[in-house]
């Protein structure tokens, strides 16, 4: 009898402990969220637009269509340290469009014309292939459609462009609409310090 009681006590203590741990974790999460310490961010290794090996598929634009913020809180960001500064950048040009008389693709890729480029160093007008460029994304125009991200991905590009949640735009929903829709679970909760990188 006493053995049964002690087993029951043990079971009850375990259940209580588990419930308390879950509640404590949840409370801690809410406190950290309230303090802005935990935020939503795109995991580039999961996002279909930037994940290596996902080739020959259309860019996923759920970040554009699902976000409750107008124009989406997710924007494309170019890591200049990784960018190849290519003369013909597949994220800037539609590289399958007709080639013009200068040898460049005749169309740009971004449907909102959010990517601009500036030549680096001395420009060679005689031979355009001698020039290389710094690429900038205008976040006021970008809606996070992911087309440039898909084209910048290895092996076509160098993977310098990725999608990122911008915290000046994100309203930090408890249940992020993009996270619910994302088939790759690429929207994840991370500490603010990690999310801001």
């Amino acid at each position: 009898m006493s053995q049964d009681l002690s087993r029951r006590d043990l079971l009850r203590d375990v259940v209580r402990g588990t419930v308390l741990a879950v509640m404590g974790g949840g409370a801690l999460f809410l406190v950290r969220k309230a303090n802005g310490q935990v935020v939503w961010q795109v995991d580039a290794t999961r996002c279909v637009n930037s994940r290596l090996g996902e080739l020959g598929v259309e860019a996923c634009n759920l970040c554009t269509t699902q976000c409750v913020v107008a124009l989406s809180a997710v924007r494309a960001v170019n890591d200049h340290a990784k960018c190849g500064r290519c003369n013909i950048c597949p994220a800037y040009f539609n590289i399958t469009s007709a080639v013009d008389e200068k040898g460049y693709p005749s169309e740009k890729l971004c449907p909102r014309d959010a990517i601009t480029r500036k030549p680096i160093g001395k420009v060679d007008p005689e031979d355009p292939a001698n020039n290389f460029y710094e690429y900038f994304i205008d976040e006021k125009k970008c809606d996070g459609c992911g087309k440039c991200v898909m084209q910048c991905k290895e092996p076509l590009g160098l993977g310098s462009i990725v999608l990122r949640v911008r915290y000046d735009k994100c309203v930090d929903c408890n249940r992020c609409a993009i996270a619910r829709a994302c088939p790759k679970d690429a929207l994840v909760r991370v500490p603010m310090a990690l999310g801001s990188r």
Partner: protein
Amino acid sequence: MQYRQTQVMGGYWKAALCGLAVDRHGHFYAAGDSHICMFDAAGRLVRRWASARPALAVGVAVDGAVYVGEAGQIEIFDAGGKLIDTWRDQARLGRVTAIGFIGDSVLAGDAADRAIRRFERHGAFLNNIGKNNPVNGFLIPNGVLAFAVDAQGIIHAANPGKHRVERYTADGELRGHIGRFHGTDPAGFGGCCNPTNVAVADRIYVTEKAGPRAKVYDFSGQLEAVIAADVFDPNCKNMSVAVDGRGRVYVADTVKLAVHVFEQVTV
């Protein structure tokens, strides 16, 4: 002109397959991981030996010495795989991704500084090639500088950022180029930066990334054939290419870590 795949050599590399070369006796060499593999003409492994650092490139001199490009150095082995010498020069041999020879000169492609270095055969530096231009070197976003030397001693260097293969003399004079960008025409080089690798024999052989393919051009830049495209892993890039005296084309699949061998189909 058509090619067919005749052989695939795999199982020798675990993490990386970077450089291919042939010697005048028909032996085939592959640099990958931290070792060199030497195969006979039938594709049988003859010898395998270790390099001090990850092997990024391999070249075989006329005397049979095997030069291995690494980060910060070149190791020189005899034909039996015994270390003869090591040239260390962090400034000029930052990341050696190609090796070649013109007469008594040794050429090294330094991807770290985007230039080809020319040394005399004992290792004394002679001159740079491809450095004297508005962009201060080759445009190689892929991180590999590749070149090959033809029978006349002309250097054919891939300049993928310009979508060209450029011709240089040994003293660094640019003599011309072939190639142009085109996103859909197979005669052009697509993507941001192609071709990535080059070999020269009676023609110019190149490989491209995204989608990976091997092609052959005549010296005027006319496409003669797409050697292969769909046999490589789609994530391949920087696929080293070599051609032997019988016209067999060796291409490294850098993801599956295998060497594909192609031969011309005679009609």
